[in-house]
Each structure stands twice: as C-alpha cells, then as structure tokens.
C-alpha cells in the first residue's frame, strides 16, 4: 500500500481508524500535559514513571489473571503513582537530588518489572504471552474501548486544565509566591502530577514503557520554540502530538513490520529538530542570520560614523570627499559602500562620496545615543 492510500485508509478502514484516532488523542494529551512537565523541569519524571509502571502491569496480570488492557493499565497507574510518591519523598527527606531519586526509582522498579516478566513467562499457563508488548507498545492492539478511555481522560484533563489554568500557571512560574497568595500548592501539584502519570500510563499500550517519555516531551520541546505564551505552547504541543500520532500511524501502516510506537516517536523527534532549526523566534537558523545581519549593520554604521566625522568638519555636510580618504582611517569595501548607497545614506560619484541628509541624520542620532551611553 502506498503512503497516500494508507492515509486514506486511516479514515475509511475501521481498524486503522481506531488506531489513528487513539494515537492522535494520545499524542494530543501527551503534548498538552508534557508541556507542564517540561516547564517544571521534570522532563525525566516521565521516563521514570513509565519505567516504574512495568511491574504494575505484570502484578495486575498475576493478581487478576486478566489481560484486558484497562486492567493491566490500572495496575500500572497504581504502581506509577507509588513510584511518583517515592521519588517525591526521597527528594524531600534525604540529601539526594531529584535526578538521583528519579534514576533510583526508575532502575529499581524497572528491574523488578523485568524480573516479574521473566517469572511470568516461565509459568506453565499459556495465557501469559504478550505482556512484553508493553515494553515497546503495540498500537495494533488498540480497541474501541481503549480509545474511549483515552478520549474520556483527555476531556477530563481539558476541563481541569481550563478550570485551574491560572493556578497551574502561577504554580509553574513561582510556587513560593503562589503559596503566599493562599493557594494550596500541594493540591495543584498533585492534580498536575496525577494527570501526567495517567497520560504516561495510557501511552504504555501504544508507545511502550521505554519510549513513552519521548512522546510526552518532544511535542512540548518543539512547541516552546514557536511561541512565548503558555496557552499557545500547550495548544501547539497538543497539535504536534496529534500530528505525530497520525503521521506515525500512517507510515507504520504503509510499510510492513514498522512498529507504530517508535515511528510516532521518530516523527515527533523530527518535528523537534525542525523546530530547533527553523523557528523564527528561537530557531538556530534565524538566530544566526540575525547575528550576521547585526554584525554587518554595525560595520556599516562604523563606516558611516567615520564619514560623518569627516563631513561635519565642512559647513555643508554634502560636500564630496575622495573615497581614498577613508583608507587613512580604516578599511572599507566596495560592497559596503554600495550597501550604504542603497540605504541612501551616501551618494557615490566617480571616486568621491558625499553624505545625504538621511545619512547625516542617521549618523548624528547614533552618535547622540552613543554619547548618552558613555555619559
């Protein structure tokens, strides 16, 4: 199937459509809530929680014997939340820093999860196969019920976000100050964290334990490049997340054997890369261009300054001077003279130049502001 046909099938084929809607909704929620994780400088939290949730999945299976995704993910949610609480209390009650606490919980829980997984696979019961799918996710296992759950969680998160927008914002920017205003920052913190953990857990089925944090962070990191407003950042991150889900699903469906989760993450990462280079506000490309232009402008201004100093010794500043005279002071190039002529700062006649009224004013104003700075 060609990519084009596949993208049509995403909307017509009912199985594919379920997967596409699921990954889009998941991407949107991840982007939305991931923005908060990024702004709180808790990017690694996602990684720790998704890994920490693995034993929850296996334990849920061992206890209930069920392989329904919502049962397993409920187990993941419980254990993920326990992991979060532990991380918080390690940071709070010991000298260890956040990164150490995250690393500890990640490896301990994940190690335990792998251990359980190996144990389960050795059980004589044939029912256990497939739990390891949660390591890298398998979007193909998404059924309508999963998508409904995803949509419901997203809607609830949206309502919460809308209601507590102002509280989230002030907590993210200045927690101490929010406290002095009388806000219960612990409650806001728990609310945000709960929804971040919930989103991670919901993503485990599609993207898997190992890569879920990328889907949380990549859209937010990309979105930050395009805007300086929190509201727009969250919105753009949601759109980027949804697009990654849609495109990723399309690509993986068109080629056999391409796993959906990793493809989605690669698409999201490509968008991050693009944003880092091409964003007009913070992108590397435009920053370099601006830097280059500034430098050129400064060079022109310096030459203009020199001309101004020569010209003002005459009563009539438009009196022509030989180009050669500039050499006595400092180098100039034909192209810079030409650029200055384009700006109508000077006029060139043969091998003589003269200042125009515009050039005179420009130089005078700059000189004026310069002397202010020095004084």
């Amino acid at each position, binding site marked *: 199937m060609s990519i084009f046909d596949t993208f049509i099938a995403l909307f017509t084929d009912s199985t594919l459509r379920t997967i596409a809607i699921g990954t889009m909704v998941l991407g949107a929620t991840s982007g939305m809530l991931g923005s908060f994780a990024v702004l709180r400088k808790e990017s690694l939290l996602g990684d720790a929680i998704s890994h920490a949730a693995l034993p929850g999945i296996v334990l849920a299976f061992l206890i209930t014997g069920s392989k329904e995704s919502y049962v397993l993910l409920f187990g993941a949610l419980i254990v993920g939340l326990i992991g979060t609480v532990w991380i918080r209390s390690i940071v709070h009650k010991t000298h260890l820093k956040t990164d150490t606490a995250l690393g500890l919980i990640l490896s301990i829980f994940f190690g335990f999860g792998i251990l359980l997984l190996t144990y389960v696979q050795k059980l004589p019961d044939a029912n256990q196969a497939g739990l390891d799918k949660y390591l890298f996710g398998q979007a193909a296992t998404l059924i309508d019920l999963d998508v409904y759950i995803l949509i419901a969680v997203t809607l609830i998160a949206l309502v919460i976000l809308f209601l507590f927008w102002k509280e989230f914002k002030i907590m993210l*920017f200045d927690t101490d*100050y929010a406290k002095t205003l009388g806000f219960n920052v612990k409650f806001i913190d728990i609310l945000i964290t709960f929804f971040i953990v919930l989103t991670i857990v919901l993503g485990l089925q599609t993207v898997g334990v190992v890569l879920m944090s990328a889907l949380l962070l990549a859209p937010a990191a990309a979105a930050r490049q395009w805007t300086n407003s*929190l509201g727009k950042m969250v919105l753009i991150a949601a759109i980027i997340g949804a697009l990654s889900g849609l495109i990723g699903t399309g690509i993986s469906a068109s080629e056999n054997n391409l796993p959906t989760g990793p493809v989605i993450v690669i698409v999201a990462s490509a968008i991050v890369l693009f944003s880092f280079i091409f964003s007009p506000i913070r992108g590397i490309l435009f920053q370099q261009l601006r830097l280059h232009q500034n430098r050129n402008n400064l060079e022109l201004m310096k030459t203009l300054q020199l001309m101004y100093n020569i010209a003002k010794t005459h009563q009539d500043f438009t009196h022509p001077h030989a180009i050669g005279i500039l050499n006595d002071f400092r180098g100039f190039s034909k192209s810079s003279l030409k650029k200055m002529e384009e700006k109508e700062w000077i006029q060139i006649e043969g091998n003589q130049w003269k200042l125009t009224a515009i050039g005179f004013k420009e130089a005078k104003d700059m000189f004026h502001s310069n002397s202010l700075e020095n004084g």
Partner: protein
Amino acid sequence: MKEERIAIQVDDLTVAYNYKPVLWDIDLKIPEGVMMAIVGPNGAGKSTLIKAMLDIVKPIAGNVQVFGKPYHKQRKLVAYVPQKGSVDWDFPTTAIDVVLMGTYGTLGWIKRPGLKEKKAALEALEKVDMLSFKDRQISQLSGGQQQRVFLARALVQNASIYIMDEPFQGVDATTEIAIVNILKELRKDGKTLVVVHHDLQTVPEYFDWVTFLNVEKIATGPIKDIFNDDNLTKTYGINYKVAIR
C-alpha cells in the same frame, strides 16, 4: 501620641535545615509604618527569616502574627517580592501576565482576572515605569526590568505589609533609585516594609529601622539608635570600621 500598632510579631521562631539551626529563637516586633532592613552576613538566615514569616518554610518552633492575628488568616495584607533569581525567566509569559498574578490572591480559585484586574496591573506597571514593556516576553527584560515587574506584581496586591528579598540585587543605579523612591512612597502611605538588604552603606539612607541577624537576632530598632559599629561587629564578626575602608 497615637498608640503604636505592631504589624508583624515573631515569637520564638526557630528553623533548621538538616539538623543545623538556620534561625535560632527569633523574637521580633515590627511596628506599623516602618521601613526596615534585615542585614547580616551570608548564611545568616535573612531569606529564611522572611520565608518563615510567610509560611513558605516550616519552622520547628515559633509563630508569626500579623496585626495581632495568625499570618495564615492575614495573607491578603502581606505582599511578597521574592529574589529575582528564584524563578525561571525563560517561562513563556509576558510582563503584564506576571503582574496580573498579583491579583490571583483576591480572585481566589478558578476565577480569572478581568478588566478591573487588568487595569490595576497596567497602573502598577506605570508606577514602576514599565508600561511600554507590558507585552514583552519576560526573558527579554533586563535584570532591573525584571525586578520592577516583580515589584509591580506586589503593588497590585495593594497590601499593608511588603516583604522583599534583596530587591536591589543585580540592578543598575537608575533602577535602584527608582525602586527606593517607590518604597519611600509606600511608606508615606503608611505601609510597612521589610527588606532583606546587602549593602550596608545605603542602610541609613534608605531605611529607618534595621534588624541585625546572624542565626540569632543581634538587635532590632530604629537606625539612629542601633546602627552602630558595635552591632555591626557583633553581626559580622569582624571590626566593621576596618573592613569597610
């Protein structure tokens, strides 16, 4: 003479991080309408003292009263200006948005700032001479401008007591004078100001009260009575007169 009201009363305040006391048994009575500097060497617990007053840091013992009632019942009367460096200025928001946060306390949960709040925020920005920067992304502001935005955010709260953590840190001379003038104006309106301050030279010029702090409270009172070499030496542990030359 009118009876002097006590704006902030601190009793037996003790704070410790990891077993080591940072503040030891602080008693403090700050009368209404004074402009008080808190001075002391690095690690003296100056920031911790105001954070404990504001219930940001939990003390081991002691309590804080504002106009005779526990602080948590009087939050609306107290505005806090944190250290500029305590937040991430790359946060995606604008100057006016930060100032609007000063209105969140009176708004309470869920309610958003409306026209009235916006007007108050613009007025506050005007007071600190930052109106033309209102839509500027905060990372694009200079250090002095960021400090002015923080000040405007506190002004919007229209509080009776202003508690500030090093408002002059890393600002240029122009901003320092502008901030001092605003503080003096607040004082004229009968507000009480408590300011953690680092520059001993300017203490007598800017303030009328001072508290010397070095884990314990060394002295507190009017500048003219207690701002002397003896207290400075006790606080900083070196002969102040020699050190300042």
